[in-house]
Structures are given as C-alpha cells and as structure tokens.
C-alpha cells in the first residue's frame, strides 16, 4: 500500500529547516509558501528517507480569492505519497516558481496550467500555451472566464 505521509509530522520537520514556510497542514495535504516552494521541493526530493522522485500530478484550482497549485508527489523507492500545495493571491500577474529543474514531469503540466489558468511559472524554459493558440482571449479554467460576454 502506498502510505500517505502524515502532513503535520512532516510540517514540524520542515518548519525547523524552513522557518515560516509552512502555511497550513492538515490530515492529507501540506500548504507551503510559494516563495519557498523550490527549496522545500528540493528538500523533499533529495532527503534520502523522503526521496520523492516522482511528480505524479500537477494542477491548479481557482478559488476566486486565490489560486491553489496542487502537486501530487510519490516516492517509487519508498512507496509513499504526499500532496503538496501552494497558493497564489495575485490575479493580475500570478507567478509561481517552476519545478522543471527538479522533475521533468512538470514541463508539459506547468505549460497546461499556464495555458488554462494564466499562472506563469518563473524559470520554466518554454513558457508557452500548449492546447490553445497564442492570442486566445483569457484563460478558460478560471472561474470568471466568460463573465460579461
């Protein structure tokens, strides 16, 4: 069975390494500050007993007052999982650091989030739209898409 790592336990440990970076931790997910995201992700990937080598799923949700980015991480060697989240409050120029340097799997998925939510991943080598064409008006998966048309 893939064991879901206890987010509160992990949060306590991360809090020591990265003071102030943990925004929230509940039973099944860990919310971190987006500025610290690359450092925390790198820690999760490179600490031997955590060894999160596999970024399964990367997506975003528009909660109107903020965007939430959701990363489903997995460790193939240790067979455990973690749901990592971060928030972005800027609707005009939402920017989150890219994780392509850590997991190649983020490449197409970050482009998809950019295409459909308009969230820019800083540091992504090829931040272009992927399904829709350049010049498409708006970002369809935002909740306010199509308002006032």
């Amino acid at each position, binding site marked *: *069975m*893939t064991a879901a790592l206890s987010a509160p336990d992990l949060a306590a440990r991360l809090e020591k390494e990265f003071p102030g970076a943990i925004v929230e931790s509940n039973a099944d997910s860990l919310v971190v500050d987006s500025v610290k995201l690359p450092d925390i992700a790198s820690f999760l990937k490179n600490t031997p007993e955590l060894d999160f*080598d*596999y*970024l*399964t*799923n990367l*997506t975003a*949700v*528009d909660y109107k007052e903020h965007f939430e980015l*959701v990363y*489903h991480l997995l460790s*193939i060697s240790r*067979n455990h999982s973690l*749901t990592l989240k971060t928030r972005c409050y800027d609707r005009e120029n939402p920017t989150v650091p890219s994780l392509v340097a850590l*997991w*190649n*799997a983020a*490449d*197409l*998925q970050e482009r*998809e989030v950019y295409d*459909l939510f308009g969230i820019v991943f800083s540091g992504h080598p090829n931040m272009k739209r*992927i*399904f*829709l*064409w350049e010049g498409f008006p708006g970002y*369809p*998966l935002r909740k306010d*898409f199509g308002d006032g048309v």
Partner: protein
Amino acid sequence: MAFKTEHFMLNVGPQHPSTHGVFRMRFTLDGEVIVDLEPIFGYLHRGIEKLAEDRTYTQNIPFTDRLDYLASMTSNQAYCMAVEKLAGITVPERAEYIRVIMSELQRIASHLAGIGFFLQDLGAFMTPLLYMFREREKIVDLFDMVCGQRLNYNYLRFGGLSQDIPPEFIPALKKLVNALPGFIDEYDRLISENEVFLVRTKGVGILSREMAISSAAAGPVLRGSDVNWDIRKSNPYSVYDRFEFDIPVAKTGDSFDRYWVRLQEMRQSVRIIEQAIEQLPEGDVQAKVSRLLKPPAGDAYVSIEGPKGEIGFYLVSDGSVKPYRWRVRPPCFINLTTLRDIIIGWKVADAMVIFGSIDIVLGEVDR
C-alpha cells in the same frame, strides 16, 4: 572544398497516418538526423475539464469514455473511484470483481490496438493490425453484451455498475480466456522473433531509468525502462490484492522493451481474469447512492493502473451537485514529456517507431 549546409524543417501532422489522431511534430533535420523536435498539441482539445464543471457528477461519466477511447473502462473506473472516495461510497464485492474483469479485458484490448498500430507505423501495413483486431473484436463483443456499447461504454456507476452481467457473459468470457494464451503465443512468435522488427526496434529510442522517473512516465513506458512500478501492486485498489500475477519489467528502455512489456502484460491480465471468474461472488452490483449526488466539500485524488499508465482524477467538491474542479491525470499526455529527449539523434524513419512505441490516444492527450 567544404559545402555549406543548413538545417531542414519537416512538419509531420496533424493529419498524418502515423500520429494516431491529430498530433503534430515539427522536426529540425540535419540531413536525415533529427536535431530538434517541437511537439504541438491541442488539435483535439475540447475543454472537457471546463465542460465537466457545469455538469453533475453522473453526467460526467460519459466524458471519461471520451478521454482514452481505447480504454474507456479504466477511465470510467478511475473517475468512479475518485467520486466514491470523495463521497465515502463502498462498492459491493461482486461489482468490484466485475470491474476487475472489465479492466483487464480493457487492458488486453488496448494493448492489442497499441501493438497493432505500432507495427503499422513500422510499415507492416494492415496485416498485423487485422490479427490484433481479430481478438480485440471478441473483447468488444463482450463489452457490447454488458452495456450495449462497443467503444464508449459508460458502464460503471458510483457505487457499482449500471447493470449486472447477463447470464451468457461468463460462458463467452471463459471461451475467450481459454483461447487467448494461444493467440498471444502466436503474436509472440510472429513478432518478437521477426528480424525486421528486431532491427527496427532493438536499441532504438532508449529511455533511461532516471529520465523515466523524473518525467513521471507511467505504464509500459515506465516498466520498459527497468522500473518495477504498477499501482495494482504498489497500492492495490479494488480487489487486486486477492489475485496472483506478475509485473513484467524490461531492462533497456528501448522501443522493443515497451512492446515486450505490453505483450507480457496481456498474459498476466488473462491470469487475473481466470482467478476473478473463479472467485466471482453472487450479490448486488450497486450500492445505494443518491441519484443527485452531493459529495461533501473537499478534494480527492485517486489513480489506478490503466493500460497506458497511471490514470488519475483530482476532484474538488464545494458540496453542490457539480464538481468545482475536475482534473484528469492523463498518462498519454505525461508520457509524451520524454518524446523530445528520446527522439533527438535518430533518423526520421525511426521517429515513427519511437513515437508509436509510446502508444498514445489523442482524446486523452488534448482532452
């Protein structure tokens, strides 16, 4: 005297017989050698994830059929399991067994189509595909028997199935399951030792173990690269912990290994189906679930082992009848992350072999 040369741009697709739908690739060539590749997506983008936000949970089941339309049953199952987790629904045991049977039949059907089209891409025009479709047809007939559909099954429901299997299903299934190993041996004999096939696929398009993991490749693409990872074993869902089966893993990560893993997986699927028929319990196939389901507010991610790899659903509920967010974790799309890296350095003629060995369905890539 040195001649001045320059790179050549070659456009393939979106309308091209080897792109399995409407996929487009822009190659940069140095003579015949590929020096760069830009995959271009989106020709089949229907905005399913947006459309799903405006429909009830049940109305969204048919959308899952239209993702990977060669593996609708497993997409059905992944979505139903995600909603069941979100709403806390338990599935009757008989329904779980039937789901497993359908899932494994679907895996065989998908791999048959995958291998058939792969050989067609290699230039073995039509003959292998017709051999594969001979058996796939029998599986499709079985699906037709249970749900009246041959492609977009819409068979599963939250908490069970739309209907029980008819009495004639099990005898027909037993007949097929008895015959299948012989047919798989035949494919093995015809393909795995074919010299032309070996020359064109052995050592071609090698995906390293590290790259496969880092790119979150899944399914036969991952297991072809020496990673022993199958969600049916690593995180047994449904009733998979009650069956004995092996996970075929290949070492090299070349196009041949990806084909080989698919072929061996069909044998394992037959083993699972045989055990499932034997253990199949009597009883209901549908739990009591509200017709207009309102899962409590929250989110859930569930993923299962589909034929192409990890097919998952991330759902966010706000407590209403419609999902607030409906995200598919598409194995075909994510498997394409590595495409550029494994194609560069090969010749144009090899590009189609490598691309075909990944086995994608555009309905799921573009959604």
